[in-house]
């Protein structure tokens, strides 16, 4: 029997007290592990958010939001400025247009509804004079108060250099049949939204008329978004040529090389483009999302520190009590020739034994509760950030990029999954060791101060 095994044996000398200490330690160590897990999960998510959403900047013509507002389209001059800006690695240009019945033989799959009718009233006011003289369907002419043309929804055309930018869920566009198109070409090809294709009985290889030209259907896409699925996607330059708007761009999404450079890039873009463009970076929206994640992370870190201190104090107090209680015994051991070092090792192994037992139970406990704890931590924080989901992006138009960004932000919270990684586990064990060392250092000092002569004192 050596000094270490004596310490281990002493740890279970008073089962009730040792049990209570172990339970308290287990709770604090379990808390440490689950907090570490929560923290690392949230940190991983922050990195992900910054890496994905945080690097995109949306540049739209000043005053324009979708099809609302007014102003001039961006031109290839502005595009060149943007492309030439430091840190910008990639740009996606988009030109959107809407085809009326005069432009195409396609029929929109959208119904007018009250929203569409209202939009139509604004759009057709300028043509009111001509429509008054034009012959109209008698049935409608009798019914309507003013003599406007039969209101029909228009077909949205998105000309883009990257068709995946239309996807609403942040991933590649889902092509349900056919093949995708090259956004950088100028071919007369189109991807047709699934609803529009059904409405007009279009299949891969079908043709339709747009702006007087015949366009071939290359593929059918499906986003699950009714607005997007009733539209068309064509290469950017095709749309520019067909609509006689060469060089015009209604929206540019620029990707910055690092999330750290987003704000500086936004600043330099704002300077370079001055009044010509409105610039919105997803980083600004992501910042709101990340800031609450960061607060969860720091909360979890505070929890780790708190639980560590609690654990160390538990061991510390327990060992102080034990040392005080066994003062005489320590004196005897010293009197019969036990060195300070040996007595300290004995008590440290006792403290370590308690900590290890507590750690085993605590780590098991931590693994069990870390999942629910992470989700409860996150859900308690999301209520304060729910406003970001209902941001000012209500206007129509091909705001797929924005929608993608928003959907990504809204999934930030729901997709945080806690996982006990080896790193976190090692960190938890390291902290446990710190607890044991701190918890037995002060008692060790007490041990060193006990004079063996005290054993000669009578009781």
């Amino acid at each position, binding site marked *: 029997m050596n000094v270490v095994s004596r310490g281990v044996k002493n740890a279970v000398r008073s089962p009730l007290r040792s049990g209570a200490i172990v339970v308290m330690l287990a709770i604090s160590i379990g808390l440490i592990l689950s907090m570490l897990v929560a923290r690392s999960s949230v940190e991983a998510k922050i990195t992900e958010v910054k890496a994905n959403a945080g690097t995109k900047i949306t540049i739209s013509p000043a005053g324009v939001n979708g099809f609302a507002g007014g102003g001039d389209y961006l031109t290839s001059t502005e595009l060149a400025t943007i492309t030439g800006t430091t840190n910008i690695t990639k740009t996606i240009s988009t030109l959107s247009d809407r085809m009326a019945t005069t432009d195409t033989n396609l029929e929109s799959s959208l119904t007018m509804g009250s929203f569409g009718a209202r939009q139509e009233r604004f759009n057709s006011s300028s043509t009111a004079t001509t429509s008054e003289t034009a012959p109209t369907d008698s049935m409608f002419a009798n019914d309507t108060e003013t003599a406007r043309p039969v209101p029909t929804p228009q077909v949205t055309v998105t000309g883009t250099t990257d068709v995946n930018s239309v996807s609403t869920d942040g991933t590649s566009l889902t092509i349900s049949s056919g093949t995708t198109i090259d956004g950088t070409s100028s071919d007369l090809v189109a991807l047709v939204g699934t609803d529009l294709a059904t409405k007009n009985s279009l299949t891969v290889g079908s043709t339709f008329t747009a702006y007087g030209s015949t366009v071939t259907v290359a593929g059918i896409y499906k986003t699950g978004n009714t607005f997007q699925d009733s539209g068309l996607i064509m290469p950017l330059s095709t749309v520019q040529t067909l609509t006689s708007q060469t060089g015009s761009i209604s929206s540019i999404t620029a990707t910055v090389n690092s999330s750290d450079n987003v704000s500086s890039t936004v600043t330099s873009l704002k300077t370079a483009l001055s009044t010509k463009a409105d610039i919105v970076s997803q980083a600004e929206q992501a910042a709101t999302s990340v800031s609450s994640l960061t607060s969860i992370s720091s909360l979890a870190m505070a929890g780790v520190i708190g639980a560590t201190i609690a654990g160390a104090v538990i061991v510390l107090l327990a060992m102080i009590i034990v040392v005080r209680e066994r003062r005489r015994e320590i004196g005897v051991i010293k009197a019969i020739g036990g060195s300070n070092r040996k007595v300290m090792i004995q008590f440290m192994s006792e403290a370590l034994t308690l900590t290890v037992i507590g750690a085993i139970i605590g780590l098991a406990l931590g693994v069990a509760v870390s999942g629910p704890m992470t989700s409860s931590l996150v859900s308690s924080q999301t209520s304060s950030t729910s406003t970001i989901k209902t941001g000012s992006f209500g206007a129509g138009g091909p705001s797929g990029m924005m929608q993608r960004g928003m959907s990504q932000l809204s999934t930030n919270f729901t997709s945080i999954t806690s996982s006990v990684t080896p790193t976190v586990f090692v960190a938890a064990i390291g902290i446990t060791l710190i607890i044991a060392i701190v918890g037995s250092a002060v008692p060790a000092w007490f041990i060193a101060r006990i004079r063996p002569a005290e*054993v000669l004192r009578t009781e």
Partner: protein
Amino acid sequence: MLVVKNLTKTFTSAAGEVNALTNVNMTVNTGEFASIIGKSGSGKSTLLSMLGALDTPTSGSIEVDGVDIAKLSASKQTAYRAKKIGFVFQYYNLIPNLTALENVMLALEFGGMPSKKRKARAEQLLTDVGIEPDQQLRKPSRLSGGQQQRVSIARALANRPAIVLADEPTGNLDSETGKKIFDLLHKLSRSENTTILAVTHDMDIAGRTDRTFKLKDGQITV
């Protein structure tokens, strides 16, 4: 041989300096059974703790077989206690959660005996002091006072010390058991040729030792 020269111990208390021991001189030959008697507060325990290297004197020297233990470093003092000194206490002071055998083996461990030899040596020592094999595996709480003191004597003798220091070894025992313990110590001092120095207030016991030192107000009076 134990030679104490001009041993003085001064404590500093709130009331000022207190001389617990003043110029104590004494010599005890190897194998001698000596006793120290004196009233409470006469300095008996202080003298014993000096001799056992549990405390360092203010001045003077304590020579054990030619080595001045008062001038040893703390770690050397610990080694001295482990190998050269055996303690027998009034309240036995056995480690409560170790068996009688383990208590003796603990002293052997501190004395530097290889772990394989400890058990046989401890069993032999306990048998010599009259502890039966089944009692050797008991913890102190399941032994009588006399048995505990026997275990403590076995522990004190474990490393064949130069001196056994006994602090009221019979003080907590009934007179009959006390006599048996005294006889045991006496027998061992003869058979092992160990110097035994016992502090006692029992004049009957003191009278039967080879030599008696009387301590009064920190000074040897005889």
